[in-house]
């Protein structure tokens, strides 16, 4: 029914080269206004990306907007976004998947939600869907309507659907913001596994403890700008270079 995704691969179709390649994201002069307020201003960032990058910062820093911009869901007022040297396009977006803070699920069964994104024959898609559900611990709820799942289960289903598109880049917009600790850890584990097998992950969070658990590199944003980019996460948490980041990590309110 839907157009073939160039990067789609089902469970068992292993692509070893993907795990060895890195993805670069180059952003320069990015600006975005909402009404009279400039929410992203002259943002520049250069990430050579091989693992799990966390974008963190206080509420209103522009993290979620930045994620939508680099995924091409919002067009910037000015600036450029290049993935592996290529400007953002539908073709590049097909190789990415995004999980939103509030899961957006179809009014179908959990399994059908995953089958929806699998460009495979019905029987193969069905088997693959069950395997993806199994990865997030929802195989026993395959036939259950997606809307009857709990908040944590919905988000795990949303994550399984994103992974089912076999994305090269997985973008996560505070996926655990409304989840309990157990569900949060499950989501973190699934994403870390995906990262370990070659999926580049960009995870937006304002939870510093979560960032410490999962981040391989950190981008700290504040007031619509990148304040600090630490290619090694531990240096950011131990010795933040900017006063703003130090205040944020110390739990002080930024205003």
């Amino acid at each position, binding site marked *: *029914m*839907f*157009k073939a995704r160039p990067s789609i691969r089902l469970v068992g179709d292993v692509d070893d080269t993907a795990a060895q390649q890195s993805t670069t994201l180059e952003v320069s002069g990015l600006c975005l206004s909402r009404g009279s307020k400039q929410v992203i201003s002259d943002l520049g960032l250069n990430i050579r990306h091989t693992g799990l990058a966390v974008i963190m910062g206080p509420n209103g820093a522009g993290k979620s907007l930045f994620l*939508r911009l680099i*995924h091409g*869901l919002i067009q910037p007022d000015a600036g450029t976004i290049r993935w592996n040297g290529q400007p953002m396009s*539908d073709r590049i*977006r*097909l190789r*990415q*998947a*995004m999980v*939103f803070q509030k899961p*957006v699920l*179809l*009014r*179908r*069964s959990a399994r059908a939600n995953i089958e*929806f*994104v699998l460009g495979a024959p019905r029987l193969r898609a069905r088997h693959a869907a069950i395997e993806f559900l199994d990865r997030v611990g929802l195989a026993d709820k395959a036939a259950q*309507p997606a*809307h*009857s799942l709990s908040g944590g289960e919905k988000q795990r289903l949303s994550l399984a659907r994103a992974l089912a*598109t076999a994305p090269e880049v997985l973008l996560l917009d505070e996926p655990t913001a409304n989840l309990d600790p157990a569900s949060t850890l499950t989501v973190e584990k699934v994403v870390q596994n995906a990262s370990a097998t070659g999926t580049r992950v960009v995870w937006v969070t304002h939870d510093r403890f979560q960032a410490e658990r999962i981040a391989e590199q950190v981008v700290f944003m504040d007031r619509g700008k990148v304040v600090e980019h630490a290619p090694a996460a531990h240096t950011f948490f131990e010795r933040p270079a900017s006063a703003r980041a130090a205040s944020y990590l110390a739990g002080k309110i930024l205003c």
Partner: protein
Amino acid sequence: MTPFSEALGLAFKLVFTGDEALYSAVALSLRVSITATAVACFLGFLIGGLLAVKRFTGRSIVIAALNSLMGLPPVVVGLVVYLYLSRSGPLGFLGLLYTPTAMIIAQTLLILPIVAAMSRQVLEDLHLEYDEQFRSLSLTSRETVQAILWEGRFALVTVALAGLGRAIAEVGAVMIVGGNIDNLTRVMTTAIALETSRGDLPLAMALGIVLLTLALVLNAAVQGLRETTYRASHV
């Protein structure tokens, strides 16, 4: 005996004695209105889906026009279809005037704006809900329309019912293009109009009661089906 109880008694008598004229009118009413609703839903859901998803110049004018056409007077629709299908009209060579097909065409034109406008509203709300997710998945407009039509299937059943209700209760258009010919184009509503003009009020009321009951049973059946399937995917 009051006129109402007399009419009620007559209605039961007509139903249970298997009155041929009654059953012929009921069958034709259902055939014409259900066919017109099916055609209008096919076209209307498509128009509604496209208007919900696509952004183009003049879109708001099209939506305003569609909303205005919801109140289209049946006699005007009947007259327009009559002019097109009459012997001297552009489609006169088809020989469709005073046939059930002409009645289906008239009812389809009458309820198409209702189905299209209502489904556009339903589907636009759904599109807002799914827009970012579908764009993230890089779905084309066609894939998006297909997806939201399926996601909105339960609400669209209600839209179809509204269209069917309007079609089955309509008299002006089918009277003009059908001609109310006994055993050929006489439906419930035109039969009621005829009996009223003849002065046979109990029979007209009896037919009215049968029509009302029919509409009620049809709506209850579809509503029951809708709720069962809705629960199966939303609970």
